[in-house]
């Protein structure tokens, strides 16, 4: 009995010690103490140097937490109990959050730097008048290829991915909407179609792609493309840039017949505790010098007109990342679809994955 009691006390003491260690460890990085602003963002999606700069300028402590999909982020916000001050969802999720009354309308008077945003990225259909959101980065869905393994001319268009010569050499992103977008565009339909027959047709089309599909993965694609594991990948522009910086044989193409264009946006949740700091952070990130620095670090395209001018010419002239007007015309944004339609996308995608061999 004594032994049991002693063991219990010992374990509890150990836990306390560990908890204290944890506290001490986090206190070191948390000198400013009480005034914190909690930012919920995609992993590695802001230059850490900018966070420190913001902390120094304002005296706030930034708590930076990350998510890896809009859906998981949405679940956490919906679940409640969270107190994020600033969240960075994609456009269709902004629409959803708006509908579910999860985000607060923005007071534009508190955002003097908003005018730096290029007008073509303002007032988009997912948030008319930018009442709830400020664009953070934008990008495209496209094809990344390895010039050692495939001729660039053979992978300029979506339909070319069906070429039998690419057998077992194409990696797809694990996302129902993106994979369907690719198929819907090749058959000339909208990426937001709610027409079941079009979807079904797209899926039949996708099934013919299966001999070429090597894997359907997410973040892992970076590593595999960098290591020459596959010739072609379907991925987002920002990830593509990262891969290209490691492996110089990789190139990124936005098919001229059309693709998805997406926006990640800063929004303030209704449940935010420190709205003042959130506004300050948005303004800080809109500052052209900061936005340019962030764009250089993250590698995605900035919607900030002034910041774009500060970027090196070779970046902004790169048609893969800032596509020409003719391509831009064909790019479509995702709209938030009714849940049962999304369910159909997901079920058809699951079926596609099952047969992807």
């Amino acid at each position: 009995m004594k032994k049991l009691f002693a063991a219990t006390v010992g374990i509890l003491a150990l836990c306390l010690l560990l908890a204290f260690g944890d506290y001490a460890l986090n206190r070191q990085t948390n000198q400013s103490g009480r005034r914190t602003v909690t930012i919920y963002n995609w992993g590695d999606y802001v230059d850490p140097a900018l966070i420190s700069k913001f902390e120094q300028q304002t005296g706030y402590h930034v708590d930076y937490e990350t998510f890896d999909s809009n859906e998981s982020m949405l679940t956490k916000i919906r679940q409640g109990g969270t107190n994020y001050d600033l969240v960075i969802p994609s456009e269709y999720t902004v629409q959803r959050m708006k509908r579910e009354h999860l985000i607060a309308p923005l007071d534009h008077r508190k955002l003097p730097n908003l005018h730096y945003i290029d007008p073509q990225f303002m007032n988009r259909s997912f948030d008319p008048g930018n009442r709830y959101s400020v664009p953070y980065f934008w990008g495209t869905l496209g094809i990344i290829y390895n010039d050692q393994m495939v001729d660039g001319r053979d992978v300029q268009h979506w339909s070319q991915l069906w070429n039998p010569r690419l057998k077992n050499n194409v990696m797809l992103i694990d996302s129902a909407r993106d994979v369907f977008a690719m198929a819907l565009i090749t058959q000339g339909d909208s990426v937001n179609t709610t027409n079941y027959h079009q979807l079904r047709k797209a899926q039949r089309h996708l099934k013919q792609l299966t001999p070429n599909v090597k894997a359907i993965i997410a973040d892992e694609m970076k590593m595999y493309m960098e290591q020459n594991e596959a010739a072609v990948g379907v991925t987002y522009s920002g990830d593509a840039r990262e891969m290209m910086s490691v492996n110089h044989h990789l190139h990124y193409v936005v098919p001229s017949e059309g693709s998805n264009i997406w926006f990640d946006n800063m929004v303030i949740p209704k449940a935010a505790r420190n709205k003042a700091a959130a506004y300050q952070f948005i303004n800080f990130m809109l500052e052209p010098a900061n936005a340019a620095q962030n764009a250089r670090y993250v590698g995605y395209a900035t919607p900030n007109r002034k910041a774009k001018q500060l970027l090196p010419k070779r970046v902004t002239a790169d048609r893969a990342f800032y596509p020409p007007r003719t391509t831009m015309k064909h790019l479509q944004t995702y709209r938030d679809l009714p849940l049962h339609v999304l369910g159909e996308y997901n079920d058809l995608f699951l079926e596609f994955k099952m047969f992807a061999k």
Partner: protein
Amino acid sequence: MKKHHFTWGGLYLALVFVILYAPILYLMIFSFSAGKTMEKYHGFSFQHYADLFADGRMITIVINTLIVALLASLIATIIGTMGALVIKDSRGTWRNSLLSLNNVLMVSPDVIIGASFLIFFTVLGIRLGFMSVLLSHIAFCIPIVVLMVLPKLNELSPTLVDAAYDLGASRWQALSRVVLPAIAPGIFAGYFMALTYSLDDFAVTFFVTGNGFSTLSVEIYSRARQGINLEINALSTLMFFVSLLLVIGYYFISKHSGRRNRIVAVKEGDAQ
């Protein structure tokens, strides 16, 4: 026995051991490589260990994982021991249904445990994070403790307890002076097994964690998806030696307390 039989068998066994240990050794060897990938060995270096200890987030996560494991196992051991006492005192169908209910979480696939706990926490409005992970770990560790303590209780001779009562002991005295000391090895073994279950869990935690709270398994999953990072190799080497120490320690405890190798018994999960 014929001699050649042994040789073939020995060869086969050697092959199986090579397969079992090759991936683990592979991880460990590259943790000492100066390179950045697991393709080519680049000369001996402690670089990745240095990186690991400098990685504040990783250390916080290791601490979190340990706190959850230690605390969850402790609470599970207390409740599980009570449960074993309850089952021991029950009779007939009631006892059988208790035993079956006890084993539900042992046989359920992790995905089911994770998914159903996620619904449960959402319905109750419990915030996903440390608390939900701790509660889940307590929940799936309890049946293991029960299964470890119950055989010890069954071995306990009833006359011993009766003797204590005859000598005028209260229930509490009988429990604390006679029963608990007798089953203590089972309780320690239960705690140890709960600890390894909790440390090893990925699937359940993956479902019920949130709000930036992460345990080692979940963190390794997200890092492994971002690519090979030899810091993970360094971590796995350290973890291998820690588990080795735990197993050796446990091996001696169980040798000390009973004839049958209880590690074997519980991995099989044979209740009686």
